């Protein structure tokens, strides 16, 4: 630490903008979600199977899409009539794709999933139920949950990631405060599903109120405990979190060291699905940033257009704003706000566009000092500028997680993260050519 790199660094989270406000329920607001949209591709761009056709009547929880790549269903989030297919921009894929459109009748008639008693059910039954409920990771990646629980590796510990290290985001926090009991039930279900003998809930040490609420409830549960971590970015990255909590490192997957990691809201939605029979139909979205009038947390049906949500939050306050589906550190900017909210989108961040003028590299080494993956960003950029494949390999370019830390700390405002993204692509292309 003193001699070599430090990695993570504290970044002002601006969480106070939304953390202690009431959640605004927009599900019955007639100006929001009159039409909802679901993309007809999976997040990795693969094809899906469409199960409904135009003019079909659907309820909340009607299976409308089946993902082929992972065999996971996607359920309707509203009740109403299917209108057809429309091509529009998707922030999930980053380009326009076909979406199925459903007209909302605001009745929210529900078609319930089968409810199981997890205390009596076997491990396999629980995993099967999680799969059928269409559970995906709600932290941002949208990776199907059941896969983590179907591996053959011996799992000793379940880690619930409630760190939310991205600035501005507060959905995990407000969801845990709002439905603490259900959340802990979900943790218990997941603990049983992976066969671990303990579960750890990790969040930042500045959330003392959440700690109090959880500890009051935790007396009813065995082998679930809370670990507080430092307020640093990117603490919520699996590798960094496991290293901090368990002092363990791994190369590929957390299951290599016997750990399963899931997001806090995933645990909550698993509990809702298995105990109440609800699919993921509503989603808490943090609408925040320095260019939105009323930053707040809103509850909307999945598939609601971002523009409708932004309007409900007072609109954008400046002309040169960037809209991000996610937090400000890792997300890509979207050109338009006419895209639907996907299950794994936890936030809409509106940031004033920065006027960034890059200077010559000061060679201060700040990017190297703070890279959480232990890379040397400026060296990778130089190697990429020289198109030196050998150097790109030696500097382990592929290990970059695109957290944005190097661009954040750079005093010369060099676009390091952007350059490394390109370098990764270039390296992959030149490796496949061989």
């Amino acid at each position, binding site marked *: 630490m003193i001699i070599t790199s430090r990695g993570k660094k504290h970044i002002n989270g601006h969480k106070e903008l939304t953390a202690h406000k009431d959640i605004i329920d927009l599900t019955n607001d007639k100006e929001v979600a009159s039409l909802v949209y679901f993309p007809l591709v999976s997040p990795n761009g693969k094809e899906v199977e469409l199960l409904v056709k135009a003019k079909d009547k659907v309820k909340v929880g009607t299976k409308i899409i089946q993902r082929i790549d992972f065999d996971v269903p996607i359920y309707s989030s509203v009740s109403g009539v299917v209108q057809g297919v429309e091509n529009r921009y998707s922030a999930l894929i980053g380009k326009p794709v076909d979406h199925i459109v459903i007209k909302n009748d605001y009745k929210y008639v529900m078609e319930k999933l089968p409810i199981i008693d997890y205390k009596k059910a076997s491990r396999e039954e629980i995993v099967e139920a999680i799969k059928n409920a269409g559970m995906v990771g709600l932290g941002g990646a949208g990776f199907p949950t059941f896969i983590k629980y179907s591996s053959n590796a011996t799992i000793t510990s379940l880690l619930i990631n409630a760190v939310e290290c991205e600035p501005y985001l507060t959905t995990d926090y407000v969801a845990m405060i709002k439905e603490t009991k259900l959340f802990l039930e979900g943790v218990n279900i997941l603990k049983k599903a992976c066969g671990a003998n303990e579960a750890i809930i990790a969040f930042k040490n500045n959330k003392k109120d959440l700690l109090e609420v959880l500890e009051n409830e935790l007396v009813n549960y065995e082998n679930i405990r809370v670990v507080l971590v430092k307020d640093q970015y990117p603490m919520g990255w699996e590798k960094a979190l496991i290293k901090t909590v368990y002092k363990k490192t791994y190369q590929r997957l957390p299951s290599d060291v016997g750990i399963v990691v899931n997001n806090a809201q995933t645990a909550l939605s698993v509990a809702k699905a298995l105990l109440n029979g609800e699919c993921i139909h509503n989603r808490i979205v943090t609408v925040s940033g320095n260019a939105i009038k009323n930053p707040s947390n809103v509850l909307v049906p999945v598939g609601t257009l971002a523009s409708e949500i932004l309007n409900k939050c007072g609109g954008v306050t400046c002309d040169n704003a*960037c809209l991000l589906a996610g937090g400000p550190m*890792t997300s890509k900017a979207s050109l338009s706000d006419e895209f639907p909210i996907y299950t794994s989108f936890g936030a809409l961040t509106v940031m004033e566009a920065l006027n*960034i003028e890059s200077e010559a590299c*000061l*060679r201060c080494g700040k990017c190297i000092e703070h890279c959480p993956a232990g890379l040397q960003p400026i060296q990778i950029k130089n190697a990429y500028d020289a198109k030196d494949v050998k150097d790109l390999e030696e500097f382990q370019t592929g290990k970059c997680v695109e957290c944005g830390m190097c661009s*954040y700390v750079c*005093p010369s405002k060099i676009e390091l993260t952007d350059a490394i993204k390109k370098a990764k692509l270039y390296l992959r292309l030149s490796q496949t050519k061989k």
Partner: protein
Amino acid sequence: MKFRLNKGPFLRNKRTTTSIMLELFAVLAVVWAVSIGFYAAKYHVLAGLRVFGIGAISIVVTLLIDVIVALIKGKRKIVDIFKYVLKSYSYVTALIFALCLPAGTSFYVVVIGATVATVIGKYVFGGFGNNIFNPAIIGRIFVGLSFADKLQTIKVVKNVTSSMDTIDVAGSATLTAGMDWTTGINTYAQDNKINLLGTLFGEYQGAIGETFTILLLVAAIYLIIRGIVNYRLTFGYLISAALCCLVVALGYKVENVGEYLLTGLSTGGLMFAATFMITDPVTSPKSQDGKIIYAILAGFLTIFIRTFSTYPEGVMFSIALANMVTPLIDSCIKGNTFENLTKRYIKIAVVLVVCLGVSFGYTKLPKQDSQESVMLIEEYKGGTINEKIC
């Protein structure tokens, strides 16, 4: 509504290179201001004015060169030129250079030195960020070699005819040059009655900025806390120099090791270099362990040149030499900075041990001006040498 498609991340640190450099300039200006006050109070008001003049001339000259370069590069609008000058950061170089000069330096030497520092030290390599050597050091080495007799300290001359005293140059002898490093006896300190406390508070003359060791230490700590300089460089350099000094003291079997060490660290601009010169990010390696290896090398070279070579001051040469190794160090440190930590520590340890070993080794070499050579010279004078050689 349309949105901008900027590159992420959309949150950036407020610290910019300009703010870092301006803050560094402010700290340098404080050291400069203290020197002006000190010289004015201790010696003469004119001495204080001279110190002010040296700094001001250096800054004005470099700013003029910046403006000329901006014009050559095709900037015509006043705003563009101002921006170019602001982002060239030559004013920092100028002040570092000025603070390395003694108070009696002729003004035209300052002009030449500042020009060399900016043009040859920086713009020849392509401007800020591309220079291999620390520009201020290039300027200082140039004037040190070319105008050694013009770099003089000052003395107060009592004027008999009028009541006003004046100042005059007092020769180029310095505290570090007066030190016999093989024995630890400092003739200059004895002649001018300078004690150890004096070396810490600048009670002697040297370069303008280098003598007030305690102030420099405070400045270094401030800069480290503010994240402007990398502590690995400052402490790596100081620790390496201290260890080498200790080993040399033990090698020469010096009587008072503590005094020897303190003189070594607090004189000859070593503390100034540790605060403002070795910490120049542009000429130091990028990686963190690289910075430590670089600092260790520079610290060793400083002591090596001082105690072993014919030059009394080693700071400038040592950092310039270490600058040359920077690209090599950068190209040697690859891979993941969190992995193979032991290997990284071993690399640093090997460099340090080799430096200390060499330091100890050269103290055991036979001294050059031994009795034998004196005899030879005498024999030569007597005309017997030719026969001996034949």
